[in-house]
């Protein structure tokens, strides 16, 4: 072997020399936005800091939260899942029928709902990954199929379950928060842990960044992609359980448009639609921002049409901000 030579150092690119200043578009930035919204509505409306507001929030938030967690994973691998709203309704319907018609214990009904979600998600994932069909199309199909399934299961009727499932959504005495909210927060923290600490999380980011490079490095991306869609389905099923606990009815019409709310929350949280970058905790903050915005606007007496327009503007502003954060960062650094 020849003796090692000395190599002149290569010039470092300028971008690598300074660590780039990050705008507060991380968790802290989102928390600041959330806090500002809460303060704004607190000042503008005398009713905002009240038990009713809190009750409304904790009732609405859990289902959207767990679905947004699944959506974060799907967007991370550069996919999309449009079926979650329908799958949630189908799973709630299965659970409702198991309790109301088949007299099953609640635990069995919950398992039935989760299994239903897992099956729907696995089908999404398998068709998408195995046959390389865009997930947009596959899950659009599943959106219709699951909705039809929900009508079939319930015979197109709303099932009233009464108080038996109410404990899922009702605040625990003395603690003030519901079982479902606690469970949703646990899911968020666990999913964030999976994303940042485990092999699965690393593979998701890698697949979203460069799927061909993953394959050429000897890792089969198909397995992991199916797993991600299956999880999104499972979490939609969990969302269905939470929804059922809150409404105490299984309504085959529930969750229409929920997939868009979930995508909006995830995007506000800064997850990239083209894959490879995202955070579960930030998606949760996105869910809270949307929920606070809607509740607050309602209390201010803003009409439903105006509420939707404002929410839409917030979504676009969030993505615009995300798009231009690097040039903005340079601008701030210069001044």
């Amino acid at each position: 072997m020849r003796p090692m030579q000395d190599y002149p150092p290569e010039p470092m690119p300028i971008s690598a020399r300074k660590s780039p200043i990050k705008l507060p578009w991380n968790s802290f930035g989102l928390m600041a936005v959330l806090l500002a919204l809460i303060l704004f509505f607190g000042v503008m409306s005398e009713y905002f800091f009240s038990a009713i507001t809190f009750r409304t929030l904790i009732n609405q938030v859990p289902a959207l939260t767990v679905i947004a967690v699944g959506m974060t994973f799907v967007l991370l691998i550069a996919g999309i899942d449009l079926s979650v709203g329908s799958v949630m309704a189908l799973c709630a319907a299965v659970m409702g029928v198991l309790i109301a018609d088949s007299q099953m214990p609640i635990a069995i009904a919950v398992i039935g709902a989760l299994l239903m979600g897992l099956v729907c998600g696995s089908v999404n994932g398998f068709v998408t990954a195995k046959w390389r069909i865009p997930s947009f199309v596959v899950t659009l199909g599943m959106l219709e199929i699951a909705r039809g399934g929900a009508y079939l299961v319930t015979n197109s009727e709303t099932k009233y379950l009464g108080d038996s499932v109410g404990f899922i959504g009702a605040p625990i005495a003395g603690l003030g928060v519901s079982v479902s909210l606690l469970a949703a927060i646990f899911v968020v923290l666990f999913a964030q842990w999976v994303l940042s600490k485990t092999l699965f999380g690393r593979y998701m980011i890698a697949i979203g960044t460069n799927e061909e490079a993953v394959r050429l490095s000897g890792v089969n991306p198909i397995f992991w992609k199916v797993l991600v869609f299956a999880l999104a389905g499972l979490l939609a099923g969990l969302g269905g359980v939470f929804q059922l606990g809150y409404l105490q009815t299984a309504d085959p019409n529930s969750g229409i448009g929920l997939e868009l709310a979930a995508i909006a929350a995830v995007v506000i949280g800064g997850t990239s639609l083209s894959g490879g970058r995202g955070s579960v905790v930030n998606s949760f903050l996105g869910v809270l921002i949307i929920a606070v915005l809607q509740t607050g606007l309602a209390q201010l007496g803003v009409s439903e049409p105006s509420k939707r327009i404002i929410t839409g503007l917030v979504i676009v502003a969030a993505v615009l901000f995300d798009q231009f954060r690097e040039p903005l960062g340079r601008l701030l650094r210069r001044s």
Partner: protein
Amino acid sequence: MNQPLLRVTGLSKSFTAPVLTNLDFELNPGEVHALMGSNGAGKSTLCNIICGIHAADSGSFEFAGQPYAPSSLQAAEALGICMVMQELNLFGTLSVAENLFFRTMADRFGIVRHDSIGRRAEEALRGVGLANIDPAQPLAELGVGQQQLVEIASVLQRALPDERTTTSIGPATSHARLRASGPDAPRALKLLILDEPTAALTDPQIDLLFEQIGRLKRQGIGVVYISHRMHEISRIADRISILRDGGLVATEAVADMNVDRMVGLMAGEVAKDEYALAPKMPDQQDHAVLLKVENLSRRVTSRSGGHTGFLDVSIELRAGEVLGVGGLIGSGRTELLRSIFGADVAHRGCLRLASDKFDRPRLMGSPAEAISQGIGMLVEDRKAQGLFLTGSVCSNISFTLLETLTNRLGLVDVSAEEQLALTMCDKLSIQFDSMQQPVSSLSGGNQQKTLIARWLANDLSILLFDEPTRGVDASAKARIQDLIREQAAIGKAVLVVSSETQELLKISDRVAVMSNGRLAGIFSGPDLSEEELLAASFRFYASDAGLSA
């Protein structure tokens, strides 16, 4: 004597390294001028500068007696300089006619006049022997060869603007003429650049193309013709210019040129000791064979009958040896590596591994399978197929080993990962600020070393490197070449594809040369010279002996 149509004086151009240095070139009107040279000699760069894609660093141009400095492809086309590129610039879902008249297909209201462009398209297609093609057919339904002819036809129809637009067919045509004579419309063709136009064509199609080129000559149009096929050049060209290392070596009449002389000119005189740096294996027979590639083939046939891939390649990789793979770009080198690695599955033939005692024929079905058998591959295009650009230096290096750094709960041992990455960075002299900085912020050379580190971190016995030093600076290049020798020295079998003959000579013990999908020979010892390698790389282009056989 007439003045030349195009005169290039003292042209220089650098990208990361100098590509053209002080190059002179002349093209006469009505002349077909062939350009030849090995990979990286500067042919494409010269043509890209002539037609305005790149700007020259220095040097002057004269076009038809006027100073000429094109600012863009459009500016060059406005003067009548057009180029048919190797990569087709066509739209598969649009019709043939719409492709032919892409910029002039609509009238002034923006409505596409299908009747008018259809008629004009039929005429243009007849000129290149595609009379049986329906102009309304989507282009994607045509084979690659036919598509190539459509591209040529779309350039050629600009050469005959008058006879076409004056034979007025109707009001639509006069609109078309109005648009065609607008400020941004290309003027009549004066200079045509053809880059490997016959690569995907069949013999009758080539005959038709040459007929068309003959017609252009008679109209006084100058043609620059890039090709590797000497027998075609001797049929069509008047003069031939040979480029080497970014400079013009010779311009001669085609009649005075033969293959031996051409190869000699392309190779030039290289100081032997310059590439004799590598410690060559005194006797390779001493080294154990690790992998036998037997009659491996993978041929992909396009609709028109053109082929890509490689046929019946048999080679042996030995422990402790660097086997270089040379040949022209597109000769099947990358495809061969990808099939050994399982990135694409080979169609015929097999691999035999020393670990199976060579008695089990295998085909790699996936990269994962190849890796489990101890084979790793550095991809040709690091950004598209190798790196996770937004990922950290650390995660890019550790990727293939991530599973072994994971405990039963799925938790990645981050400190062990960082330790591994640090060790590799140190070993390969990768320069970085932080393990967590995105790999996209590194220089090209450090990016490449990061990707190499991913493979060296594994203990694989067979390493396939595809263009390991492409697009890296000189110091990183030297380091990577050393690394390759070091890997052989510790007993690995290394296969290196490179477009630089000098590099192959420097680092390889033996060099296999691919030519038009075939293995043209394996050279070692006294046979290992630039002339031999170049001559071999042209071998199967000279007849129908390559992929089409």
